C-alpha cells in the first residue's frame, strides 16, 4: 500500500524487505543546464540494454526525433527553442535560448506502475529503483495509463511486408509483437556489477549524474544556488522534494523552465494515494447494487 502520509520519502516496505542485501537508494540527477543535446545517453542506453529500433521519422521539432519516452526509448532528449534570455539580468533584445533535457523514468518513491501491476512483475530493487521483470510481465497494460509521466509503454516491433498477419483474438500468429511493457531499469544489471548506468557513463558533460540519492539532492541544491546567484532564467529543481505527490523522484532534474515546457507534469500525484477512498466508494456502490436489485422485486413478479 502506498503510504502518502510518510514524509521521509522512503518507498513503502523498502529497504526492510531486503534485510542484509539492502543497498543505498541510488538515482539520477539530470542537470539540464549543462546538457548539450548530443544524445549519447539515448545511444548508450539502446546499445547496453539491446533496445530495438522503433522507426525513423523526422518530426521537425527542433533536433528531437525521438519525441517521447516509451518501450523502445528509455532516455529521451527534449529540445526547446525559445525567444527567452538565458540570464535575467542585462539587455538581450534578440535573446534566444535552446533548452535541452534528457528525460528518463523517474523511479518514483511511490510508484503507481508498481502499485497497480497485477502480476508482481514490477518490483522495487535493493537500490530502491523500479524495474519490470520481463519473464513475468504478461502485457496487461495496466501500468501504462497509471504512470503520471507517460513513461511505460507496450513494445511494438515495426512490421515489414512479408510478416505473418497480426494476432487475432490473442492467437499471436508468428509472435511478431513483443507484447510486454518496457522501461528504464536504471541499468539494474550494471549496478549489480558495481558500474554506473550506461547513460550516465556516456554523458560527456556530466549533465546526467548517478549516485546515492541523498548525495545527489545535496549536490543539486548547491547547483541551484549557484545558478540563481548567476541569474539564470527559470532555474528550478523538479522532483527533488520528498513531500511531492509521488514522494520525490529517484531520478530528478534541474530545469530552466516550467516542467510542462519539457512535456513533464507540473504536479504529478501517484494515483494510489486515493486508493482507500476508491475502495470505499467501490464498497458503497456494491451495497447500492444489491439494494437496487432487491428493490426491483418489491412490486412482486408482475
Amino acid at each position: 500500500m502506498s503510504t502518502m502520509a510518510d514524509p521521509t520519502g522512503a518507498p513503502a516496505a523498502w529497504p526492510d524487505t531486503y534485510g542484509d542485501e539492502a543497498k543505498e537508494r541510488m538515482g539520477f540527477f539530470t542537470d539540464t543546464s549543462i546538457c548539450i543535446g548530443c544524445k549519447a545517453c539515448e545511444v548508450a542506453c539502446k546499445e547496453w540494454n539491446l533496445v530495438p529500433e522503433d522507426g525513423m521519422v523526422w518530426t521537425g521539432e527542433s533536433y528531437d526525433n525521438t519525441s517521447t519516452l516509451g518501450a523502445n526509448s528509455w532516455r529521451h532528449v527534449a529540445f526547446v527553442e525559445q525567444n527567452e534570455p538565458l540570464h535575467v539580468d542585462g539587455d538581450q533584445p534578440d535573446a534566444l535560448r535552446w533548452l535541452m533535457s534528457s528525460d528518463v523514468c523517474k523511479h518514483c518513491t511511490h510508484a503507481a506502475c508498481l502499485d497497480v501491476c497485477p502480476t508482481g512483475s514490477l518490483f522495487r530493487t535493493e537500490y530502491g529503483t523500479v524495474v519490470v521483470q520481463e519473464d513475468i510481465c504478461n502485457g496487461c497494460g495496466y501500468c501504462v495509463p497509471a504512470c503520471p509521466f507517460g513513461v511505460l509503454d507496450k513494445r511494438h516491433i515495426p512490421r515489414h511486408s512479408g510478416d505473418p498477419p497480426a494476432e487475432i483474438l490473442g492467437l499471436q500468429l508468428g509472435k511478431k509483437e513483443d507484447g510486454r511493457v518496457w522501461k528504464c531499469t536504471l541499468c539494474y544489471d550494471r549496478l549489480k556489477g558495481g558500474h554506473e548506468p550506461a547513460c550516465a557513463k556516456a554523458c560527456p558533460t556530466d549533465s546526467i549524474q548517478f549516485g546515492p540519492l541523498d548525495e545527489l539532492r545535496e549536490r543539486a541544491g548547491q547547483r541551484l544556488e549557484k545558478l540563481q546567484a548567476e541569474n539564470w532564467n527559470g532555474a528550478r529543481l523538479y522532483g527533488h522534494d520528498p513531500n511531492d505527490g509521488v514522494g520525490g523522484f529517484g531520478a530528478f532534474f534541474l530545469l530552466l523552465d516550467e516542467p510542462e515546457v519539457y512535456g513533464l507534469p507540473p504536479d504529478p500525484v501517484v494515483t494510489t494515494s486515493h486508493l482507500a477512498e476508491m475502495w470505499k466508494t467501490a464498497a458503497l456502490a456494491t451495497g447500492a447494487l444489491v439494494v437496487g436489485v432487491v428493490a426491483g422485486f418489491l412490486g412482486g413478479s408482475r
Partner: protein
Amino acid sequence: MSTTDVGTNMRSYYGRPVLKEPVWQPEIPFYFFTGGLGGASSVLSLVARWTGNDLLAQRSIQIASAADAVSPLLLISDLGRPERFLNMLRVFKVTSPMSVGSWILAYSSAASSMSAFLNTIGRLRHVAELARTASAVSGAPLAIYTATLISDTAIPVWHEARKELPFLFGSSAIASAGAAAAIAVPPPQAGPARRLAVGGVLAENVLFKLMEKRLGMVGEPYSKGEAGRFKKIAAGCTLGGAALLAGPGRRSRLAAAAGGALTLAGEVAVRWSVFKAGFQSARDPKYTVEPQRERQSARSRTAPGTGAGSV
C-alpha cells in the same frame, strides 16, 4: 481558472501528451459490459430464488454463467502475452484493482458456471443453491471493480471521476442484467427484470449528467469525439429500450425482447463512451497540465512562499 496562468496560455512540449494512452484493445469495453452483466445477473438470480420466481432465477444464472465464461476469454485475448494469463493469480495485491478483480472473476466464474450447470441438469440441488449464493456474493464486486480499476490510473477523466464511476458502472450492470432477463423470461414473470432495466437506465443517465457537471473542463472528453458519439447512442438506445420495456413490454414478448436488446446495445455503448473518453483525455496535454497548475496555485495561495523557486 481566471487567476492562474493556465487556460489558453498553457505551454506544452510541441502539443504532445504528457500521459500515455491506454494500450487496451476493444476486448476491454466489451468486458466492462460482460463483467457487469454477469455480476448483476448473479445477484438477480439469488433474489429471484428468494422470492420464489424460479424461472427468472434459472434464466439469470444461465445468463450470468454465459457472461462469466466470455469475460476471461476477452481479458486473456487482450493480454500482450496471452499464454501468461495465469500470472494474474501469481500474487494478490490490494493496491492493484486488476489483481483483486482477477481473483473475483476466477471465483465468480467458477461459482456461476457450477450453479448454472447443476441447475440445468437438475442434479445436486443443494450444491447448486450454494454455488448460486457464492456467485451472488461476488457478483456485485465483479460488476463494480472495473470502475475502480480505471479510476486508479493517471488519466484525468477517469481518476477525477472516481466518486461517480463505480455507481455509473453499477447502474449500467443492473440495467444490463434486467434487460437480458426481460428477453429470456416471458412478461408475466419478468416484472422485476423490467423494473431493474428501467431503473438502471434512469439512474445511469442521471449519474452521467451529474458526473460531467461536477468534472467541468476535465470531463469534456466524455462529450467529445468518439466518446461523445457513443454517449449519444447510449442515451438513445437505453432510454428507447427502457420505454419499450416499461410500456408494451409488459404484455408483449416481442416488445420486451426488442426493448431488452435496445437497452443492452445502449449499455455496451455506455462502456465504450467511458473507455474512449480515457484515450481522448490522455491525448490532450491540457487535461493533465491545467488541473495540476490549478492545484498548485491553489496551494501556493493558501501557503505563500512554497510555490516559488521549485516545483
